[in-house]
């Protein structure tokens, strides 16, 4: 069971009007018209616009080097830096993951923007981000269930580009997956296409734990996700 692949329909995910309102800056349920109406319209269309796919590879041959703050997975060195090394130091295995909402939702957003429908275009963009995060939440929950059944636990997720880990290291991360896995490709500048995609690692072991809200670890004070998800298990720093 080295490589696991998942496919989701939009209605299997938990993407609500409330959560979209939250990421647009409003208190859930408090966004004035026409926002709720437009959010509902986008959510109703989302089903046809998405190709939600993701997956992970589990590797057992790993080592965490606390001196030079690196992670060694199957002979590949990742320079994850201090914060992530600390969070993963007790892991015995790791799951490298990728996930995408597919290209449709971003294309739709671009089209709307181009036509001058700025608000709906922006809402579609936010919905796309939430779809990929929410799909990854589901994949992570499944991984957690499987590991728990073996008496193991998992950590939060950590992504290249966060907490000092260079976004360029995605090149190494992608080398663990078959080409075009889930329809995701990586450009030379380490941009994933489709744009609504995420990548990273999750620690696995007897002595690791999910901490949930990890924003306090990160120094990105202007992040729009900061403080917003404290009530939900959040994996973005």
């Amino acid at each position: 069971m080295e490589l696991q692949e998942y496919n989701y329909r939009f209605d299997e995910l938990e993407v609500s009007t409330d959560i979209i309102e939250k990421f647009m800056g409003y208190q859930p349920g408090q966004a004035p018209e026409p926002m709720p109406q437009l959010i509902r319209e986008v959510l109703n269309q989302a089903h046809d616009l998405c190709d939600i796919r993701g997956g992970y590879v589990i590797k057992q041959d790993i080592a965490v080097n606390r001196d030079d703050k690196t992670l060694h997975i199957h002979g590949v060195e990742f320079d994850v830096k201090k914060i992530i090394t600390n969070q993963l130091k007790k892991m015995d295995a790791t799951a490298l993951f990728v996930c995408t909402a597919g290209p449709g939702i971003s294309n739709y957003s671009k089209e709307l923007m181009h036509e001058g429908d700025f608000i709906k275009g922006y809402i579609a963009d936010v919905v796309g981000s939430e779809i990929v995060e929410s799909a990854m939440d589901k994949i992570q929950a499944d991984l957690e269930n499987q590991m728990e059944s073996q008496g193991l636990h998992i950590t939060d997720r950590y992504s290249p580009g966060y907490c000092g880990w260079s976004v360029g290291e995605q090149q190494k991360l992608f080398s663990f997956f078959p080409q075009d896995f889930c329809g995701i490709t990586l450009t030379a500048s380490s941009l994933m296409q489709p744009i609504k995609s995420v990548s990273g690692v999750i620690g696995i072991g007897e002595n690791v734990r999910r901490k949930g809200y990890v924003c306090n670890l990160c120094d990105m004070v202007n992040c729009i996700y900061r403080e917003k998800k404290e009530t939900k298990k959040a994996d973005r720093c």
Partner: protein
Amino acid sequence: MEELYGKIAHCVEFGKINLASPYPPDMKGQEGADELTKKAIDEGFPPEEVLKKGLVVGMEKIGVKFRENKVFVPQVLMSAKAMSTAMEHLRPFFESGAVKRKGIFVIGTVAGDLHDIGKNLVSMMVKGSGFEVVDLGTDVNGQQFIEAIKQHPGCYVGLSALLTTTMVNMEKIVAEIKAAVPDTKILIGGAPVSEEFKEKIHADFYSRDPQGAVDFLNRSVA
């Protein structure tokens, strides 16, 4: 006269597009930027004043509120929509040359990067302050910027990047532009970009928000 300008500015600031628009809730059933701008033009108000004392004032106010985190992206977009709807009534005057733009701003997301929401926001705010904006889209390389600069001599240029890996392309593009058209003023922005990075790559201005770009451009053409 001043009262109508004030009303137009208010509509833009609060994103009141037109009579039919339900937003903002406390202006439901009232005329919006669309109707009021048309009224001003129909009544013979100088179009230049309608722009500068009405529309631009409203956009400036929302830009400042956004910078101060008092409003969020959707409110800015509502204002931009109100502004662009009203601008349709001014279009003939721009085309005839009766009303002049403050200058031209060429913007694009740099090569290797496809993010565009932030770039679009900057583009809308700069347009809303009275500049003509040429949006080259995403994944734009140095050559494409240079061609646009040659087509619009004297224009200002904005570069946007959202990843540290594409931010480095800014350095290359800035060098290429400065070599081809040395006097070009280049503004940079995007989540990972900073003042120090601006210094390092010899760009002319950095701002973390669109209003900073507007202020810089206004100062430059003053």
